[in-house]
């Protein structure tokens, strides 16, 4: 079977790209190896652990189990796209302030999943945070601090919007 090339056009972190990918390329490999966006991590490779979480049109998805060609026409956000002109995103600041990571491997996925939660629900209860975030795994088991970080960020973001 020849390696079919598929033309795709999409935005990553606000920047437009137009390129070709092999039909069987996975999104995570394309992001890490072609675009150099290595903040997106691979671990379980089966949509369970959440280290490969990216936001596709604002929705949290597992980039390990999507094809690269599925980026066509989409708007993608990776961890590299969170920092704004004013520096780190409030979620990133909150993870630092509240000790929301230890080894840091799950952190990009945790922060992006938290971002999708706060876009859907800007003022979640602790229970809602736990329920939503149970999608992603932290092997250092720093879950309490991750929850604290997200609740803290939600407060900061709400205050900033007032």
């Amino acid at each position, binding site marked *: *079977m*020849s*390696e*079919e090339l*598929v033309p795709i056009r999409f935005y990553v972190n606000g920047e437009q790209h137009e390129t070709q990918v*092999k*039909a*069987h390329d*996975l999104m995570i490999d394309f992001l890490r190896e072609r675009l150099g966006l290595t903040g997106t991590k691979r671990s379980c*490779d*089966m*949509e*369970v652990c*959440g280290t490969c*979480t990216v936001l596709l049109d604002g*929705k*949290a*998805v*597992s980039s390990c*189990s*999507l*094809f690269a*060609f*599925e980026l066509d026409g989409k708007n993608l956000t990776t961890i590299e796209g969170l920092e704004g002109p004013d520096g780190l995103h409030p979620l990133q600041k909150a993870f630092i302030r509240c000790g929301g990571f230890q080894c840091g491997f799950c952190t990009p996925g945790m922060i992006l*999943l938290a971002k*999708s939660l706060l876009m859907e629900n800007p003022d979640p209860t602790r229970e809602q945070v736990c329920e*939503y975030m*149970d*999608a*992603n795994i932290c092997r250092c088991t720093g879950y309490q601090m991750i929850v604290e970080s997200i609740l803290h960020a939600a407060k900061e973001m709400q205050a900033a919007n007032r």
Partner: protein
Amino acid sequence: MITPFALHQPRSLPDALALLSEHDGETKILAGGSELLLLLKMGLIKANHIIDIKKIPRLDRIDYDPQAGAIHIGPLVTHRTLEKSELVQRDFPLLAEMERDLANVRIRNVGTLAGNLCFAEPHADPAAVLAVYDAAVTLQSSERERRVAIKDFFMDYYETALEKNEMLTDIDIPKLPDNFRGSYLRFCPGEWPMVTVALLTRWADGACAEARLGLGCVGPRPIRVGEFEQALRGKSGDELAAKADKLAGIAAQSSDPLADLWGSVEYKRQIVKNLVRDGLRSQCDGRG
């Protein structure tokens, strides 16, 4: 590593079905891909052709047909869309509850209900709920269209009634009268459920007028437990609450689980019994 394949992105359903007939065998349909990519990456299946149906309009619709009193779910409708749908939450609460519990939000954002069914993964949530709702699926090829009851769609572990040139194009679920109570219970120590239980009861004059019990993950297909459903009929809530343990035993005996990583046959039967008993008791209390 996924081996190379030819990618097709048809713009209409007839085009997709024509492609399926043309390349029968080693051809896979891509909707959400949350099942397909796992199996491709593990090398458990191989595809020479992949037909991506996401560019076909209107396959992502949820429609209510008031004449038939049924909801129609297109093959691109994701778990998350069903979970969030006001129509589903209002008229098919057990379906909404099941979708909220399914896997994780990343998978629910991408995976479709139709795709989930097509892989007939035994440790999956939807089958038991669809069985108690008496759901059916429509299977279409270029030559014909047929409607198959959900219990007949599942043939065996990872096997369905789909022919190689057929595509699942619709899931229909009849709406129940308002006075049904429902419970969806699952035991899920990891990512995939070990046992799922869906129980619906309808009550009239203090007695159970109708019951439907579906068991999932404990056999090659969802199980409706006719003996249990019969045994509930005409009994009062108090009577059923007192007998819940014994009745749940009927359900456990009707289950046909495999011993696997989740547990032994005996352990899974005990879990079935516990879940059915809890579900039944909650509905006898007037809750649920």
